[in-house]
C-alpha cells in the first residue's frame, strides 16, 4: 500500500497557527504609560542633537586651544593666532 507522503509531512500552516496562538504578552501595560511614551517621543532626538552639538563645540574649542599652543611652530601660525584671539 502506498503511503500518502503529504499526510506524513508536518503542515507548516497548522503548526504556525498553533504556535502563534500560544504567544501572549506577559501583561498588557497601562495605556497611560504608552501615552506618556508617545508624548515624550521628541525627547530622545532632541537629547541626541543636543549631545552632538555639544560634542562638536568641544572639538572646535579643543582644536582652537591646540592651535594657540602650537602656533609658533607651524607656518602661518601667527595669522591663525591673531584670528583666534581678538585684539
Amino acid at each position, binding site marked *: 500500500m502506498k503511503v500518502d507522503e503529504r499526510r506524513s*509531512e*508536518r503542515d*507548516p*500552516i497548522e*503548526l*504556525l*497557527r*498553533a*504556535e*502563534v*496562538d500560544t*504567544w*501572549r*504578552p*506577559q501583561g*498588557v*501595560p497601562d*495605556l497611560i*504609560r*504608552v*501615552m506618556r*511614551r*508617545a508624548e515624550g*517621543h521628541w525627547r530622545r532626538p532632541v537629547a541626541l542633537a543636543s549631545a552632538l552639538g555639544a560634542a562638536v563645540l568641544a572639538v572646535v574649542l579643543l582644536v582652537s586651544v591646540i592651535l594657540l599652543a602650537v602656533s609658533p611652530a607651524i607656518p602661518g601660525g601667527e595669522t591663525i593666532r591673531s584670528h583666534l584671539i581678538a585684539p
Partner: protein
Amino acid sequence: MTRTARRRQTVGVVSGEGRPGSWGIDPATQFPLLYEREYESVFRTVRAMVLDQAEAEDLTQEVFARAYRARLRYRPTAPPGAWLHRIAVNTALSYLRRRKLARLLPVRLYQAPDDRAYARSEARTAVETALAALSPKLRAAVVLHYFHDYSREEIATILGIPSGTVASRIAKAVAVMRRVLNDVPPGGGAGREPNSAPVGCEQ
C-alpha cells in the same frame, strides 16, 4: 481557538460589513478600546517578525505609542486593525534594520542579539526555527495571512506592495517553512545549524 473566533478577536475586513472586529472603532476618540482589543494581535505580529518575546513586548508598546501620536491622522479607508498592523510591520522592520546596522559597527557600543545565536538556542520551537529561516518581510506576510486571516489584497494595503508580490511572498514562505520543518526533528528546532541567510532578504 477557532479561526473564526480569532478573526472576530482581531480584525474585520476592508469591506468590514457585518463582521465584528476593530472596524468602526475610531482611534481618535476610542483609542483605549482599540488598545484593549488589538494589543495581543499586534504583539503576535511583532513577535513573529522579531522572534523575541522581550523585544516584541517593548516594540508593541512602541507601536501603540506611534499609533497614539498618529490617531488623528487615521482615515477610515481600512479597519483600524489593518492600520495598526501596518504601523507594527514598519516598526518591526525599522528595529530589525537598526539591529543589523548595529552589528556592522566596528566598535560595538551596543551588543545586538544575534539571529544565529537565537536559532541555536535549545528553547526555540520548530515553527520559530522555520520563521527564522525567512526574511522579516516574508514572516510578516505569512503571519498576516495564515494567522490573522488577512486577504492578499489587505496585506498588499498593509505592506504597501502589489497583491501579486504578496502572493509570491506567501508561496515562497510556505515552501521554505515546509522544507525547514521537515528537516527539523519533531519537538523542537535544536540541532539545526543555520548556515545561510534568511530567505527573501532581497525583497
